[in-house]
Each structure stands twice: as structure tokens, then as C-alpha cells.
């Protein structure tokens, strides 16, 4: 990713905002998910209790990760599951390729995995002659459109059905101009059915890895993970170290909140538990760090690893809804994307793509304190001398200025005067981003302090 101005969040967001009707359309689609989530969460009286248990269960697991990872590995081995460990994305990709190459795999069907996106696995495998077919409908759409996902649960949420129709017409031969979602979905079903039946291997992400069972849980609505993993004889599952849960009892808590918070469904259509390969098959689990242990070294950032990737924070985020998933200089957008991605953001801008409104933290089913984490990222950036938007130049001045009553009173007095006597047309060019979009404040005659001295002094 480049450090050029073009990748700075505010710049990309400004471009996105130029088409206001599209912003409204995008915002509305995501807000609908938030509304469905509110109804689903509100329908079970124990919702807040489940959030609290979810949070504590994840905190417990993250603070006992060594034990649970080792327990998970030992139980997997007993279940004839092969376990691999990868320090980073490069090692993950290398391991996956080695397994596939050993089995002479030419074609892999893959269900949604934000981890493989994070590791940029698809291009790595494709460069080595292996075709990777994303099978989640949204993922397939953006794969055909050669775009990154713009959302972690609904990856093609930024595309209109007409655009999907044109894409499918070009790539899958659907009727020109056809944009009916049912028609397009059926066409994708047919297209991907053929891929499932001819694949040499399947890959999935992992929603939860159950330590005491040595099993992985994969949740989908479409059934694509299970169609994939249960046809070819080779199945691979990639998971971050943060996906571990102690037992089935813990998994139940997450299964109760995940889909409700994501889309407002009471549960995903399929919550599948793989505790070993099919007869005559081979099952591999790749456990990946890729920066997670670094985050655990900072107790504020560490809490981001409680995330269960429901996407609820994206749907509620007023900035995400109005700037789109591609405006964040990281694979994962929105509040959780900032929380886990700001340290990798070489534009140093995504930590500021947030008003600190706190809605995300209250939506979160495991109480990830997203606004606090984002605030903390800003502090880390400032300490590292990596401030965006000219802040490193003006903030010290603001600090000095604000700490001096005399300077503050004096210059604000002048500003009030200027607002009073200068015509708006003259002021607007000087008032920058404020006056570009909003009317300037109406200037009062005096400060409160001056009024107080005069009237109560």
C-alpha cells in the first residue's frame, strides 16, 4: 500500500461523498442491518448478560492462550487433524502452498476467511498456478470484479445489483441487463456448483476453535464452506490464534450473539463443527499469529482480539457508512479495522476516521472497547511522530495557545470581532473545512467571563 495522499482516509472518503445519493443508499443498506440487529438482540432478555459473558470468556481465553493453544493442538492430533503454526502471513501462505502442491492441487474452493485476505493468500497461490475460487456469493462477486471486500460480512455491499448484473453478464454469461437478485444468485449457484464438484481441495476460515474437543467451527448462511469441505478429500482451515475458545459451552455463547449482531438472524444457517477429516480425507488447521502476539503486548490493543468478526461495528459506524469500506487503508474496514489495522496503516490516517462516538463499543457482542482502542492508536501514532493532517505542526501551538488564557481570550476576541464585522464571503475562504460545508457561528458580543465580571463581579 502506498503512502501517497490518494490512500489517506479523508481523501478517499471525500471522493466517496461526492455521489451523495450513493452515500445515502450505502448508509441505508447498512443501517438496515443495524436495525435488524437491534430487533434480534432485543428479542432475548439475556442479551447484555451474553455480551458480558462473551467478553469475559474471551478475556479468559486470551490470558490463557498458551494452555488453550497447546490443548487444542493435542486434541486435533488425536482426531487425525494436522496442525501447522505460522508466525506471519508469508509463512501461512507457504504452508498452504506446500500442502496443496504435495497433493497436486490445481483448484481450491474457499469460503470466507478474513485471515486469508489479511495474508494476501489468493495472489500468492495464483502466482504458483493454483486457482482459488471464492465461493461466498459476495466474495465471488468482488473476486470477479477484482476488488477487495468492502465489509467483513457482506463484502459486496458497495455494489448495486445493476453493477453485479453487468459483471455476471460479462463473466458468467447471464442475460444482459438482468439485475434481479434471485436470478443472479441462481446463476452463481449453478456456476459455483460446478466449481465445488471439480475442486481438488477446500479452504475455510474458522469462527471458533474448540480447545477441549480439537474441533473447528465454521459458520455460513450459504452452505458454501460445507459444500467445499465435504466434497474434495483435502480440507484446510486457517485461523488466527485469537479464535480459540475453551469448550462447547463457550462456543454456545458466541453462536447466540454472532448472527444476531451481524444480520439480525437468530443463528447462521449452518454452524458446522469439524472434529476430524472425512473418511479417507485429510484435514489441516493452520494457526496464524501475524501480529496478534504483538497486540497482546499492549493491554489496550489486546482487547481487539476479543472480536468475533460479526461486522456489527461497521454497520453502526456513522463514518464507515458514509465513507465506504474501500476508504480504509487496511483489509478490514470500519472500527474493528482501525483497531486491528492502524499499526499497519502507513498513511497514518485511519485512526482519525472516527468521531469517538462510541456506538461500536456498545454494539459489540464481546464488548471490545473500540473507541478506546482507536483513541489509544492516536496516542501511539503521536508518540511515534506519525500524525496526519499536519497535526504535528499545529498541535503543539494549539497546546500552548489553549493553556494561555491571555492568548485565548485575546485572539478569540479578535475572532469574534472578525465574525461580526467581516462579510461571510470574505471569511469563508479563511475558515477552511468548516466554512466549506457549514455556516460560520454567529459571533457573540463578549465572552461569558467578561459578561460575568460585568454582571456578577
Amino acid at each position: 500500500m502506498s503512502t501517497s495522499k490518494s490512500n489517506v482516509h479523508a481523501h478517499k472518503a471525500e471522493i466517496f461523498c461526492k455521489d451523495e445519493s450513493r452515500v445515502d443508499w450505502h448508509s441505508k443498506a447498512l443501517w438496515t442491518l443495524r436495525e435488524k440487529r437491534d430487533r434480534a438482540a432485543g428479542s432475548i432478555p439475556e442479551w447484555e448478560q451474553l455480551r458480558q459473558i462473551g467478553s469475559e470468556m474471551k478475556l479468559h481465553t486470551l490470558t490463557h492462550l498458551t494452555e488453550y493453544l497447546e490443548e487444542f493442538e493435542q486434541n486435533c492430533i488425536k482426531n487425525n487433524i494436522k496442525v501447522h503454526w505460522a508466525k506471519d502471513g508469508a509463512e501461512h501462505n507457504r504452508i498452504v502452498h506446500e500442502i496443496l502442491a504435495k497433493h497436486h492441487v490445481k483448484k481450491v474452493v474457499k469460503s470466507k476467511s478474513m485471515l486469508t485476505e489479511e495474508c494476501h493468500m489468493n495472489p500468492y497461490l495464483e502466482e504458483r498456478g493454483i486457482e482459488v475460487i471464492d465461493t461466498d456469493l459476495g466474495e465471488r462477486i468482488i473476486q470477479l470484479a477484482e476488488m477487495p471486500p468492502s465489509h467483513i460480512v457482506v463484502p459486496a455491499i458497495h455494489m448495486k445489483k445493476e453493477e453485479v448484473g453487468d459483471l455476471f453478464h460479462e463473466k458468467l454469461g447471464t442475460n444482459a441487463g438482468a439485475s434481479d437478485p434471485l436470478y443472479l444468485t441462481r446463476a452463481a449457484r449453478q456456476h459455483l456448483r460446478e466449481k465445488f464438484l471439480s475442486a481438488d481441495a477446500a479452504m475455510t476460515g474458522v469462527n471458533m476453535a474448540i480447545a477441549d474437543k480439537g474441533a473447528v467451527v465454521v459458520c455460513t448462511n450459504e452452505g458454501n464452506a460445507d459444500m467445499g469441505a465435504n466434497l474434495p478429500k483435502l480440507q484446510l482451515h486457517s485461523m488466527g490464534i485469537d479464535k480459540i475458545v475453551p469448550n462447547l459451552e463457550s462456543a454456545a455463547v458466541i453462536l447466540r450473539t454472532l448472527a444476531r449482531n451481524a444480520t439480525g438472524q437468530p443463528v447462521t444457517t449452518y454452524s458446522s463443527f469439524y472434529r476430524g477429516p472425512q473418511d479417507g480425507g485429510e484435514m489441516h488447521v493452520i494457526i496464524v499469529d501475524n501480529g496478534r502476539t504483538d497486540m497482546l503486548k499492549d493491554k489496550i490493543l489486546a482487547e481487539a482480539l476479543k472480536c468475533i468478526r460479526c461486522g456489527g461495528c461497521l454497520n453502526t459506524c456513522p463514518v464507515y457508512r458514509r465513507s465506504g469500506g474501500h476508504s480504509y487503508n487496511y483489509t478490514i474496514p470500519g472500527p474493528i479495522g482501525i483497531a486491528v489495522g492502524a499499526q499497519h496503516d502507513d498513511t497514518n490516517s485511519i485512526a482519525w476516521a472516527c468521531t469517538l462516538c462510541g456506538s461500536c463499543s456498545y454494539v459489540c457482542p464481546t464488548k471490545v472497547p473500540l473507541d478506546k482502542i482507536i483513541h489509544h492508536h492516536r496516542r501511539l501514532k503521536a508518540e511515534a511522530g506519525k500524525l496526519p493532517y499536519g497535526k504535528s505542526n499545529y498541535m503543539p501551538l494549539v497546546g500552548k495557545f489553549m493553556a494561555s488564557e491571555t492568548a485565548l481570550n485575546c485572539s478569540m476576541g479578535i475572532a469574534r470581532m472578525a465574525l461580526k464585522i467581516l462579510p461571510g464571503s470574505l471569511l469563508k475562504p479563511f475558515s477552511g473545512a468548516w466554512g466549506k460545508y457549514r455556516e460560520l457561528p454567529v459571533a457573540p458580543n463578549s465572552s461569558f467571563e467578561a459578561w460575568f465580571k460585568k454582571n456578577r463581579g
Partner: protein
Amino acid sequence: MSSKQHILNALKSAAMAPHAMPTIDVAPRIDDLVGQFEANLITVAGTLHREGGLVNLQATVDEHIAQGMQVISMVEGISGNREVSATAHELSDIDYAVIPGDCGVAENGAIWVNTKNLGHRVTPFICENLLLVIEAKSIVANMHQATSLMTLAPGEFGTFIAGPSKTADIEQALVVGAHGACSLNVYLT
């Protein structure tokens, strides 16, 4: 150093103080479990057949067969017109699969299906339409109860199925029938 050791070493520098495992003690909603189950099954686009049991189901299956459909049954007492195939791939033309579920979950309409007796794990996914059979008395209140009862022996694969496969990836429009079954009918016994 192996990557595993590298990761476990890095975990030694983790900053958070150890946190205790919370007690998971959530009050179940136990009134009218079948009614709750049916209401939630409907919200996930499934259909419940409360009455008639296996007799009703066999009659339905017979109708499908009479119309030339390919039906495989893994439920004792229900006969279809297809047997378990040598390979999973040969199931790709199955129109209806009749499969036993172990338990239903009232709070979300899900049914636990352990695939150990299915011949091929892919059966409930690859069929065009799915018919699940559960005992009414197997319906539990919530996922806490379901996960404490579900069977998943070492090496096995099981899945909670809540309705037919679906997607809303194109403009949030719900389409039933993505990659898995396009319909789900549940028969109570």
C-alpha cells in the same frame, strides 16, 4: 526455533492480567418449546410439520418419487429411491434428502445433525431440498442446552442447520437457496 515455539514465547510477553472464566448460567425460556421452535424456524425460512409424523413424510416422499424426483433417505422407516453412493460427488443430482436430526433448538430454529450415519458428510448440503426429522421431545430451549446435549465424537462432523441455505449478498435482498438446500421441511415425530 519452530514457529510454534516462537508464538508461544511471544505470548509470555502478553500484557493483560489473567482473567477468570465466567460462569455461564443463563436462564432458559422454557414455555412452549415447540411453538418457539416453529416461530424461529419460520423466520429462518423453514417449515414445520407438527402432525402426521413419519406417515405424512412417507406420503410426501412417495409423491416426489412419483414425479420423478431423486430421493435419498437416511431415516429408518422412510424409503426413497436412491442408495448411498460410492462417492460424495454422485449425490449432486439428489432432489430430496431425508435426514434425522438429533435435537431442535427453540430459540433459533436450528437442528443438530451429526453426519456419522449419512454415508457422506455433504448429503444435507448437496441435496436440492432437505427434509429433517426430529422428535418433538428433543427440542431444547437454547444453544447452551443444545451444546451440552449434542454428540460429536472424535473424528466426527456435525452441524446446526437453521433453515434452507440463503444469501443477501446482492443489495441485501434475501434469496433462499444459495449453495446448499433450497428448502427445508422439518417433520416432528
